[in-house]
């Protein structure tokens, strides 16, 4: 029974729900930063008995990158394009919450069917990583503003990171750093996309991309 790890994972799921349910971009980014910092602490709890230097480096890198640099970058982006909130999402807040709730149930069911080669310190790690991934997808599909889609993508990456923590012992450090780098580059690319959309169309509504323009 690893009660602290359980508490952290439940908190992470709930913060994910808050991100999915909020329509204000600033709130979304702040909660995302909080969730990422909490996620960065997961390795310390999971490998408390067999702490190694590279595990600490990965955890600290995750905290700094996802908890400070990415949110600041996103805040810079919303200042630059001056959007404040998601006005008319494709999927409303109530439906999004319902879908996320179903995704949590589904990921717990799915995780109970899977067999993993490595021993897992908490039964909640895999379901919560699955549900974060699905919530990220819901956010990407359900929102129209490019920045909330970026947050959805980052939420998805957080889920993948949580899953990768399980394999931290087996995976070389390089792969871990690759994940972080991939995330960073993806966010930069998204930022450029966001700015270009806003320069072209005077807003960051991705709906504008589906119509042809001369």
């Amino acid at each position: 029974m690893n009660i602290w790890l359980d508490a952290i994972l439940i908190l992470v799921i709930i913060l994910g729900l808050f991100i999915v349910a909020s329509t204000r971009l600033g709130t979304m980014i702040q909660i995302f930063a909080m969730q990422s910092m909490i996620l960065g602490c997961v390795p310390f709890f999971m490998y408390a008995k067999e702490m190694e230097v590279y595990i600490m480096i990965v955890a600290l890198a995750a905290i700094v990158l996802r908890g400070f640099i990415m949110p600041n970058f996103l805040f810079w982006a919303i200042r630059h394009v001056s959007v404040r909130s998601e006005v008319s999402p494709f999927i409303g807040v109530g439906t999004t919450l319902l879908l996320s709730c179903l995704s949590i149930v589904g990921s717990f069911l799915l995780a109970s069917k899977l067999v993993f080669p490595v021993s897992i310190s908490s039964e909640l790690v895999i379901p919560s990583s699955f549900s974060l991934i699905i919530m990220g997808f819901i956010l990407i599909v359900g929102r129209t503003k490019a920045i909330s889609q970026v947050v959805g993508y980052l939420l998805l990456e957080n889920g993948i990171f949580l899953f990768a923590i399980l394999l931290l012992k087996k995976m070389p450090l390089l792969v871990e750093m690759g994940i972080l780098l991939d995330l960073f580059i993806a966010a930069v690319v998204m930022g450029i996309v966001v700015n270009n959309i806003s320069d072209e169309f005077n807003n960051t509504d991705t709906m504008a991309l589906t119509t042809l323009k001369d």
Partner: protein
Amino acid sequence: MNISLSLHLIILFVFPPLLLGIIGKIKAFFAGRIGPPLWQPYFDLFKLMHKASVYSVTTNWIFRAAPMVSTAAILAAGILMPIAGFKPPVQFWGDMVLFVYLFALARFVIILAALDTGSSFEGMGASREATFGCLSEITMFLNLTILALLSGKLSLSEIFLGGLSSSWVLVGPVLILVVVSFFLVLLVENSRIPIDDPETHLELTMIHEVMVLDHSGIDLAYILYGKAVKLFLFGALLVSVIFTFKTQNFLIDMFLFIFEIIGLAILIGVVESTMARLRLNKVPYLLFSAFIFSIIGLIVILVRGH
């Protein structure tokens, strides 16, 4: 045995209006006023009992019966609930289902009475109460299911008198979810501020108060008293989940319980003073998050084993 029974009943019947007084005092403190005395709810009840009731000609017996039936149902729920570590007078296997449905009955007759007045204003309040009620009831049941799974018992007295003693150590996170979810349900069910303002009487966004606008005299006294008892019972439920520790001395337990529930009333007062009321269309999201909290708790319990 008889002493504990009579103490249980005395606390159940006499204590609840004091909670409203405490909440009023806390709100007055935050507003920088002195506020009404702590005993004001008792004075109000006493005053209302000596006033005559006025009945509209469009109403029939349902309107007259509803306040009595609802208060009786709430008090009957109180008889099932262990208070201050005392065994309840009535307990049987599965009484938690009856506990929830007695509150549903109380709500149902009040809704009927509101519809009976024929006023569209009250009908609107009734529709809101029914909507939020069906959302909070399912959350309530889920939370009780979690507690029943944790303790392996289906009776409120067995759950709360020792059934949960080791749960905080084993599955603390889940119990925190249950507590948060219960607290949200408590605010909704007792129409406290983030959902509904118990002070206003002339706003289009209110829920519970609008249904009882036509009651007067002793009927209103019944409704106010029933409301206080309901708040007390939800508080007792919440406090029993949070504080599972019991000294064996019943007198100390009783005073601890009373301090805990006064602390809860202070917390509600602070929440009421520091928060603004939610927009009406946001309230279902709040209830829905309470529901999701308890769903997550239930799943974790099922996955973790208990």
